[in-house]
């Protein structure tokens, strides 16, 4: 049971799968050099340049070629380097990959994994710090994964690779270095199942991706003050574990959703709206980035982002 970083955990997961199935391959910029975060370290040596394909800076084609290759029966892992560059490949993702199975009446199997390391990454500014995972939870035809631990990130990769559906994996940039245990034999993750991080009756907290450890920290601090919250890490947003959240909210009557992304029309809105529909009377609140691009300077970034202190304050206010 290796104790590794999240980046290494995903490396082990992809390695395990690529050894199992020769149809799996990786395409993206600089992947032959191990990827920007070392997540493909040593792969070129083991799998060669046909399965570890360092590409030109051609995001549209990285994405679209991945789709084409899936249509003939290979299983590509499309590496976007960082999320923001997927904006150069949206036609291929949104108009082609997400729709092709449906549009063609089920003939196509767009079995691609799209890796998009996302989120705030200290002082990288507006074009390298986006959190738009909520967009893709609104888009029919794709699975959306937002893991937050090495074990979940590894299991997510295994499921993503084995799925015949397009799976979007939002690697949490800020957590590449977070460490944890990963099993020797990495099993797949079931999409749509939240992880119960803390148990309590005071309040239901829901989070995912890089915000989940912050929520955990907040939950522990609240527990030290005698306030026990029920904390769920959604792990996947499409599908999402509506039942687990509803079961918790039915008990606590209070729902606090915290995410890195902008609050307005973020996925937290879906979580709160669904609970409002199912459990009227729920007291709900969302925490996230204000409707502002991510700035560069440390104090500006700090002024805007979610912190454990802000989560604690929001929770206490809801309980006041």
């Amino acid at each position, binding site marked *: 049971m290796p104790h590794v970083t999240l980046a290494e955990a995903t490396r082990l997961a992809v390695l395990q799968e690529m050894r199992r199935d020769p*149809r799996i*391959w990786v395409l993206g910029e600089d992947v032959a050099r191990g990827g920007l975060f070392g997540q493909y370290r040593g792969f070129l040596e083991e799998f060669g340049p*046909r*399965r570890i*394909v360092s*590409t*030109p800076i*051609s995001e*549209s*084609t990285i*994405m*679209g*070629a*991945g*789709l*084409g*290759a*899936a*249509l*003939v*029966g*290979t299983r*590509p892992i499309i590496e976007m380097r960082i999320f923001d560059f997927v904006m150069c490949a949206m*036609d*291929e993702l949104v*108009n*082609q990959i997400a729709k*092709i*199975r*449906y*549009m*063609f*009446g*089920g*003939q*196509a*199997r767009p079995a691609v994994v799209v890796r998009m390391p996302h989120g705030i990454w200290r002082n990288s500014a507006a074009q390298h710090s986006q959190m738009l995972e909520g967009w893709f939870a609104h888009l*029919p*035809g*794709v*699975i959306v994964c937002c893991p937050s631990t090495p074990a979940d990130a590894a299991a997510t990769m295994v499921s993503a690779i084995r*799925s*015949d*559906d397009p799976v979007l994996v939002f690697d949490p940039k800020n957590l590449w270095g977070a460490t944890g245990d990963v099993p020797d034999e990495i099993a797949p993750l079931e*999409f*749509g199942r939240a992880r119960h991080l803390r148990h309590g009756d005071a309040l239901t907290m829901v989070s995912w991706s890089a915000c989940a450890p912050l929520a955990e920290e907040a939950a522990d601090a609240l527990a030290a003050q005698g306030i026990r919250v029920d904390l769920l890490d959604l792990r996947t947003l499409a*599908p999402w574990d509506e039942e687990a959240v509803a079961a918790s909210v039915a008990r606590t009557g209070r729902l606090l959703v915290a995410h890195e992304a902008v609050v307005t029309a973020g996925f937290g809105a879906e979580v709160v709206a669904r609970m409002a529909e199912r459990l009227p009377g729920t007291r709900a609140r969302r925490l996230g980035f204000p409707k502002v691009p991510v700035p560069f300077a440390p104090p500006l970034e700090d002024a805007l982002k979610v912190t454990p202190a802000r989560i604690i304050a929001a929770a206490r206010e809801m309980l006041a």
Partner: protein
Amino acid sequence: MATNSARLLALLSTMQRIRAFEETAMAGHAAGEVPGPLHPSIGQEAVAAGVCANLRVDDRLTSNHRGHGHALAKGADAARMMLELYGRAGGSCGGKGGSMHIADFSVGMLGANGVVSGGIPIAVGAAQGLQLLGSDAIVCCMFGDGAINRGPFLEGLNWAALYRLPVLFVCEDNGVAAFTATASVTAGPGVAARAESLGVPAVAVDGNDAAAVDAATAALVATIRAGGGPRLLHARTYRLTGHTSTDAATWRATDEVAAARENDPIARLESVLRAEGVAQPALDALRDDALREMSALRAHANAAPWPDPASAFADVIGENA
């Protein structure tokens, strides 16, 4: 009959079937039977026929919004295509796609596309996948002259040349993009020069000369299949009808259209065949057969049941649904 005549007759038959399919579908559209937009390729049939005559069933094809001819020439089932245009049960895509999204994976037809140049990255990826699988199948990528001004053209050709992929790019150049003459929005010496600058050797052909398209494609496909890397075929042709079936294209100069009618690829191929000694009735029979086939398909499609409304919810995603 000479082998050559047999091959040309086969081309003519494909072209007549495409023409009849589209004329029939247009009539169906005009009668309110076919929903949605319809982009006919009438006048361009020699490109589809001549190119696809050189493809194996396991070769793949990506197409654009004007894809009926490509699909038929690649061997897609006309009955299922007509049902699809009519949005009926049993259509190629179960009624979910319609004319602009015809696909028939069973014959390697990986789909029409509603996005101009959308098929280019898909084609190069399919070729890369085939290369990884060790297959000797190739991929044919059809697009219009309007598509060469979108980024994927550059990216896809560079990519194909770089990885020496088995792709035949075909630029079906009808001189227009929707309602704009492409010459008025395209700088530089043209598609072949662009391709060469990206490392893809290019060949030009008269796209209204089915035999010439056939011969040029045969040579290119042989090179590509032998591992020679990608090639581009630039086929000049003319769209006799409008952008869509409801567009009368009245903005075009009438003498231009008249001249183009003289250059109809079907008439031209017929005269070649007559010169090779094929009798007129044999030629007429091909046209009549095609028209009969397609009107029967129209009647069948128009009487066919609608898809089950419950199927609207299926095939969004697969096992993770």
